[in-house]
């Protein structure tokens, strides 16, 4: 391969036939899809046809790195993307994790790992540079995630390894199961269930090779400049290193945009008891960083005296403080720490897990779920003991935890009686902690995300910071496309979202182009990067279009379109259908998609060198 940064090889493991092979990454692949999410989206589209059962043998599970992975570019060292067809919503899914796994994969010589088929018994994958083995995992199966990873270190006789694994929730195919890697999670969309369906308990990797960039001197200069800008920035230089993402609790509550009691409200009277300042003063143990990160936003926290004494967790992050905290009406930080730790141990996505618990609480409040059907639990908002017990039950898939582990949509079907109004999801993926009603750009970001309710395609940042006016709706469709182009690019390099304030929170910039140049040697304009991002986003959408997606899929939860925020600083805000439609029109216009159908136009596909898709999208319909 003529470009820098890449390992140049993809590892392919077929667990059905035990066949292990490698293939080269072509220059053209890098030019068209950049890496990470781009590569994986292309492979998934080509190799996993419509109608594939996400938990069946024919789904594939892809672990990918980007060209910048493993280098010394700060906050880019080791972000991992996991791509598959989601068992939660049957769509294209990309899920991300920090840690060190991606870097070690690259050091072992692989830009990506493609897992195919299904093992006949529990196995784990051992990668030691070029030596790749499928090994029995009978002694690991059933174990929780930290024990599994510690055991893998012992078995390897080496602590210089990186590991990724599932917990009991993934083994038992809970559709909200995540993959833990080190102390981080590829949380969203049920990647853990796909891993479980393949009988793959874990991957352990030792990598001793190096990563070479295209222009070392230019790279050094740029990486030092970026590190300087990170230190000088209030968010990345002070806020995140001190409080981590937890400080967003206070910020969003002050704006009246902190989801509370299953998003019935967006202000939480006890926000101060679950926020960054409170955690720092009462529970803080140590700072923690992903590989190659100069920020270190992760905080190790420990519960205090009482029922949850000695629970220690890396986190809880802002999302979890919302999902297991304010959105369940819970003000006990110790219980949230315990719930976070249990989610990690069982391998449960804290966002979807918390969301299904807050939904159960609202259904109980509305009389749709009586204590007998809820294993005798008192599901009142604020009952932290019930929350922690439900996390355990979801992890064990026990009692009501079984159906709750299937996510909010299936839980609503199970309950019936109009419970779907209380399932706060977009396209089947539970909505995270950023207000759709308060931030119209975030709302259209949710509605047009290819994976559904995620804050990682569209972003809340520029509106929350006031860089873009949060009060306006006009122009937000166009604005959010710029944001999604930026996130698609970041996901393909693959770099962490914490850099959006450094490289630019709205669209693609000269800094993004410079990063590509110093790492890979590709001399690309902002326009070229935009095309790459649009190409990848269309490919993801095409994966969904084959499953029946169209304009009508791009919508929001009933609550956000019909119930204004009832109180607080953002009182009265919501996204009525006509506003959503206006923003959708803008989005499709900016993207070159048909406003009526939401499908990419023929000329757009041709311009982006996606001619293969013309037939797929326009001639088979």
């Amino acid at each position, binding site marked *: 391969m003529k470009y820098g940064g890449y390992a140049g090889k993809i590892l392919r493991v077929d667990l059905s036939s035990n066949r292990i092979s490698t293939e080269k990454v072509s220059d053209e692949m890098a030019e068209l899809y950049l890496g990470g999410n781009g590569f994986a989206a292309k492979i998934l589209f080509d190799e996993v046809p419509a109608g594939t059962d996400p938990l069946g043998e024919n789904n594939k599970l892809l672990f990918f790195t980007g060209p910048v992975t*493993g*280098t*010394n570019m*700060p906050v880019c*060292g080791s972000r991992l993307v996991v791509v598959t067809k989601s068992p939660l919503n049957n769509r294209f899914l990309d899920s991300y994790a920090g840690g*060190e796994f991606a*870097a070690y994969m690259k*050091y072992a010589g692989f830009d990506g790992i493609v897992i195919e088929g299904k093992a006949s018994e529990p196995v784990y994958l051992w990668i030691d540079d070029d030596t790749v083995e499928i090994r029995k995992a009978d002694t690991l199966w059933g174990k929780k995630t*930290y024990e599994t*990873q*510690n055991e893998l*270190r012992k078995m390897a006789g080496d*602590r*210089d390894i990186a590991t990724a694994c599932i917990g009991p929730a993934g083994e038992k195919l809970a559709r909200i199961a995540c993959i833990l890697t*080190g*102390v981080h999670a590829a949380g969203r969309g049920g990647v853990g269930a796909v891993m479980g369906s393949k009988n793959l308990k874990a991957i352990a990797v030792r*990598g*001793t*090779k*190096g*990563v*070479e*960039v295209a222009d*070392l001197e230019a790279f*050094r200069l740029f990486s030092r400049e970026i*590190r300087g800008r990170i*230190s000088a920035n209030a968010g990345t230089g002070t806020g995140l290193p001190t409080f981590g993402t937890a400080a967003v609790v206070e910020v969003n509550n002050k704006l009246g945009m902190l989801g509370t009691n299953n998003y019935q409200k967006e202000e939480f009277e006890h926000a101060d008891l679950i926020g960054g300042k409170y955690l720092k003063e009462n529970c803080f*143990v*140590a*700072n*923690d*960083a*992903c*590989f*190659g*990160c*100069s*920020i*270190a936003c*992760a905080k*190790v926290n420990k519960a205090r005296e009482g029922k949850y004494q000695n629970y*220690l*967790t*890396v986190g809880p992050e802002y999302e979890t403080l919302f999902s297991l905290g304010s959105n369940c009406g819970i003000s006990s930080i110790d219980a949230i720490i315990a719930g976070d730790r249990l989610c*990690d141990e069982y391998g449960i996505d804290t966002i979807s897990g918390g969301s299904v618990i807050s939904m159960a609480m609202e259904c109980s409040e509305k009389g749709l779920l009586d204590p007998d059907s809820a294993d005798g639990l008192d599901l009142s908002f604020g009952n932290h003991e019930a929350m922690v017990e439900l996390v355990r039950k979801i992890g064990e898939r026990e009692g009501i935890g079984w159906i709750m582990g299937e996510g909010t949509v299936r839980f609503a079907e199970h309950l019936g009686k109009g419970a779907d109004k209380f399932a706060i999801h977009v396209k089947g993926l539970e909505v995270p902690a950023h207000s759709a009603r308060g931030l119209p750009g975030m709302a259209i970001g949710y509605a047009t995300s290819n994976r559904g309710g995620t804050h990682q395609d569209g972003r809340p940042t520029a509106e929350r910071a006031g860089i873009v006016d949060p009060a306006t709706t006009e122009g937000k469709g166009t604005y959010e496309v710029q944001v999604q182009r930026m996130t698609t690019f970041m996901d393909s390099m693959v770099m962490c979202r914490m850099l959006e304030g450094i490289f630019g929170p709205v669209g693609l910039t000269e800094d993004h182009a410079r990063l590509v140049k110093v790492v890979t040697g590709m001399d690309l304009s902002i326009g070229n990067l935009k095309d790459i991002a649009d190409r990848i986003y269309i490919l993801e959408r095409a994966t969904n279009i084959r499953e029946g997606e169209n304009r009508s899929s791009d919508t929001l939860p009933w609550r956000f379109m019909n119930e204004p925020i009832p109180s607080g600083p953002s009182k009265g805000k919501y996204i009525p259908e006509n506003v959503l439609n206006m923003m959708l029109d803008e989005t499709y216009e900016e993207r070159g998609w048909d406003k009526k159908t939401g499908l990419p136009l023929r000329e757009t596909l041709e311009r982006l060198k996606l001619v293969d898709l013309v037939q797929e999208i326009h001639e088979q319909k």
Partner: protein
Amino acid sequence: MDHLVVDMGKCTGCGICMLACSERKLGIYKPSAARIRVSRETLPDGLKVDLCRQCENAPCAAACPVGAIALNDSGVWEVEEKTCIGCGRCVTACPFGAMFMDTVSKKAFKCDLCGGSPECVVQCPKGALDIVSGK
């Protein structure tokens, strides 16, 4: 004798020291070639940093059967590559896990303090690494 020290209260486990080290020594990013190591003995906590103490009576030098490890002019223990036979006794002897073996060239390597201004100290974003004089 000058040597590296780490303040574990400040270390976040980011491993930038390893990237800085291989960048300076080899011009590539390769933690396995770094003269300092960050790892996790156990999860979720359990960070560990292995670094050379430039020991007064260095066990690595004492264990070397061919005298390849010697003090240089600045008083830092160095491996003389052409003398090293790759037996690995120094790696076993080091109580701090700070002697390493290049599996390809079969030569031992270790921290030489970059001639007085260690790149890991320069690049550590949290100021957790420092160089101190004497014991």
